[in-house]
């Protein structure tokens, strides 16, 4: 890649960071402009990303040296197709959640903190974009820390008791896991003497410190399991995701945990590589078992929830299991399924949380049985919810179906039929908890006075992002062929 184009990836990451730094000034000049200007930064970042389309070879990657320093010493970005794809996903969903926040957040966050909300929001998006494309494992840690700290703060941003408690719980589990990442990286460094992923990949095979490698991988996996809320280390998730303001829940559930799960795949494939799976294979097997347990546990718990945001949060736990089961199949199909699932789960889950936000915004309802008959008053939100739920279940022709196809296929191909069956059972559980809500909303008469007879849906500024997401679940299902070929190639080259 030549000329100015090679700078695009780093510009995508630094622009929102720059935005975050500028936001207090914008707020000083004109407070109402803050949401729009922050959105502008993400839009520009996204447009730069679109310029990159077609310039990333599906079976290779584009390196970028920060500040021109040579790779083993300087920080390097390695943009492969999977990373680029996820970067765009992060950018798109963040933008929609940010636009949604404009009207929603005024209700939940007091005036003075609104700017802080946008600053943290932009930092969060920037860090996630960096997180998925970085080629340096210490840089990965840095982005992860920015991501984690801004998430803790954003969970607590409303300042009420429960939010602070949930954020503290999140912090209590998150902080040790961050330290464990550092420990894992330290162990790797001690065994190989490098932090660059490509360099590590070359040296991991040669080094004699087998036990150190095993320990390091196990510690890293464990640490990221907390960040990705994979059963049994999910304890922080339901509270944090259901108590955070809805657009924030959308970010946390849709993106933060999913990119953390992807980080495990990144470490397994880009750092340890296929040659050392003999060494770290046991950890991957254990991870797969945890993933399978997560699928079932999350699904069953979701069925028993009364609060719909809690239900969506538990559904996320279940879907993190999908992603783990996908890439631990160790074949291109499984990995493609996992990456595509980050996309479609992100979109669908963000949409569900935004719909939940619409209900909370208009009516203040949080219980599932209060949704009976919601169709009469808020049809647009209900339709968006149904479409997104369609994708969560994985029914054709939504994007969820495509990723489910590849996840199950990858597992059958890897001779892991039991895990394939677990994935299918997960889909059945998803159908149970989603169809219940759809049934309540559309076919059940509501309680007297719970819903008005005339249409009074959420304001257009909130409906537009919700609908954009719900239509995206269909778009990425019907037009999945635009991406899948490249993703399969990218996955194959990651596994080569």
């Amino acid at each position: 890649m030549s000329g100015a184009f090679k700078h695009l990836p780093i510009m995508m990451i630094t622009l929102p960071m720059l935005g975050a730094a500028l936001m207090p000034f914008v707020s000083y000049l004109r407070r109402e402009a803050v949401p729009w200007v922050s959105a502008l930064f993400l839009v520009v970042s996204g447009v730069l990303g679109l310029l990159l389309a077609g310039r990333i070879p599906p079976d290779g990657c584009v390196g970028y040296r920060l500040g021109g320093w040579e790779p083993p010493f300087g920080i390097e970005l390695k943009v492969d197709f999977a990373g680029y794809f996820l970067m765009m996903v992060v950018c798109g969903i963040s933008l929609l959640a940010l636009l949604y926040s404009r009207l929603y957040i005024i209700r939940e966050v007091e005036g003075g903190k609104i700017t802080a909300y946008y600053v943290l929001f932009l930092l969060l998006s920037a860090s996630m974009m960096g997180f998925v494309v970085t080629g340096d494992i210490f840089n990965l840690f840095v982005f992860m820390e920015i991501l984690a700290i801004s998430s803790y703060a954003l969970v607590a941003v409303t300042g009420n008791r429960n939010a602070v408690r949930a954020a503290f719980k999140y912090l209590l589990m998150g902080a040790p896991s961050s330290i464990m990442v550092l420990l894992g990286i330290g162990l790797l460094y001690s065994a190989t003497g490098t932090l660059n992923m490509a360099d590590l990949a070359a040296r991991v095979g040669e080094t004699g410190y087998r036990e150190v490698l095993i320990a390091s991988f196990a510690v890293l996996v464990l640490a990221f399991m907390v960040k990705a809320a994979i059963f049994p280390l999910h304890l922080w998730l339901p509270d944090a995701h259901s108590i955070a303001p809805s657009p924030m829940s959308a970010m946390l559930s849709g993106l933060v945990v999913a990119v953390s799960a992807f980080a495990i795949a990144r470490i397994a494939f880009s750092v340890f590589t296929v040659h050392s799976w003999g060494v770290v294979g046991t950890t991957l097997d254990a991870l797969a078992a945890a993933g399978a347990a997560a699928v079932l546990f999350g699904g069953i718990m979701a069925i028993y929830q009364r609060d719909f945001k809690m239900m969506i949060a538990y559904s996320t736990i279940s879907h993190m299991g999908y992603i783990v089961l996908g890439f631990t199949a160790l074949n291109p199909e499984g990995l493609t399924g996992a990456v595509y699932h980050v996309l479609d789960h992100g979109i669908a889950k963000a949409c569900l949380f935004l719909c939940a936000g619409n209900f909370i915004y208009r009516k203040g309802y949080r219980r599932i049985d209060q949704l009976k008959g919601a169709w009469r008053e808020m049809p647009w939100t209900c339709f968006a919810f149904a479409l997104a739920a369609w994708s969560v279940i994985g029914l054709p022709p939504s994007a969820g179906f495509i990723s489910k196809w590849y996840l199950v296929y990858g597992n059958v191909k890897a001779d892991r039929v039991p895990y394939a069956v677990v994935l299918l059972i997960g889909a059945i559980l998803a159908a149970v908890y989603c169809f219940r809500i759809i049934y309540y909303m559309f076919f059940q008469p509501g309680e007297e006075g719970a819903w008005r007879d005339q249409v009074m849906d959420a304001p257009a500024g909130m409906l537009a992002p919700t609908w954009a997401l719900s239509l995206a679940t269909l778009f990425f299902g019907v037009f999945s062929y635009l991406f899948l070929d490249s993703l399969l190639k990218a996955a194959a080259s990651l596994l080569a």
Partner: protein
Amino acid sequence: MPEGATKSVVPLFPVLLPWISLLAILLMPRKAPRLRLWLCFAGSALTFLVVILMLPGVLDGKTYYFKLASIVEGLEISLYVDTLGYYFALVLAFMWMLATLYSISYIDHKHNRFFAFLALCGSFLIGCAFSRNMFTYFIFYEMMTFGSYPLIIHEETTMARRAGYKYLVYAIAAGTVLFFAIIANYFWGGGVLNFEKWGLLSLETASRAALLTIFFTYIAGFGVKAAIMPLHGWVPDAHPAAPSPASALLSGVILKAGAFGIMRVIFNLFGIGLMKELGVHWVVAVFACITIVMASVFALTQDNLKRRLAYSSIGQVSYIILGLAMVSRDGALGGVMHLAHHALMKACLFLCAGVILVKTGKKNISEMRGIGYQLPVTMICFSVCALAMMGTPPSVGFISKWLLGSGAMQAGLPVYVVILLVSSLLNAAYFLPIIYTAFFRWEGDEEGAHHPKLDFSAENDRLMMVPVVLLALLVLVVGIWVTVPGFPYSLASRVVNLVFP
């Protein structure tokens, strides 16, 4: 691109035309509700017209192909019209048109929802019929499955809700099993799922255990829709709960989508030869026989007319399955033809039940004394179809049964003939009492009162009577002039000639 196929955009039209109805519902002014419904009918009529226009080409042996999207090599979403698919599309487009017409005056509340989902299901079913591969079939099939849920619970009574719930449970489980079957087939079958060959899998590419797994997961997945016992549980609840045109479509077409799926599996994916080699046709035949007999026995005990008809459907769809499992030429021909024949008969019966319900409010057979004098045309049509169901000549039912019996003899298994005869006897046992109650009993007959006068005044609703009479006539006409081009025989015999070269 399949061998010898013509690339053509025509197959796309029947899939898209029903959407006219949706546009009509969304865009037409609220003030003209009647106009909206007529536009819905126009959508379904146009669909049928386009399908009819493809008939000469299909009879010439042409196949049409249209690619919608190719996801990866071998996995594409594409439409493909071969004789078998065309045959199903023709049947269902016709049924859909009549049911839409009938619904215009039958449905009395929430028109928009009913007609929207009616059209959607029609579109998806045509998609099923025109699918080129199992992947495409599954996509349309699942959408159709969940799209028909609002049709079933349309009345929103407690009974309808329960039936809808049961339907969803069965549908979700079946969809999951089917999904697994397709993945397994895709993996062990070498990455193709296409329908254009008559036998895609073979023992050389996959192990026996794998093939058995694939076959039985397919049968279990489609068996729920095709109501093979013990997977039939949703059928007797859903039919009485749904509005009559929806029940007619459920029995006439949607149950057949399962049977059609099994046809695709047996003819195109496995092939008759491989099925024989694996010996699985025995298992299928045994289940089909059990279903045929048991469903008729259950039907005997039902007093609710639509419930009795629903059990009858369970048994009749298994005729199709039994025909396929006979692995003989005439058996397959009978099975394939019965798909259309049963659709004609059973749709008519359900539509008659709908007329009875609307005009007299009666649901149970025991209340229907003398109803033949109140609704003579309806009950004559009902009787024609009921007699046809028993296999009385000259009717479509007779043709099916004759071919199935002859197929059983070809296969050297007269025991199937016995099953068919037992079933006919049971059919007579549960249909004749209805006719008897309708025409030979009346209020006060035991005290010697003279039978009431025939009263044609109640049947003044043309929109409902036209489909009923038309179907009853077709039951006779198709049963007499069997070989007219475009009637089931012309298409089914082509299919069977390809399957048994």
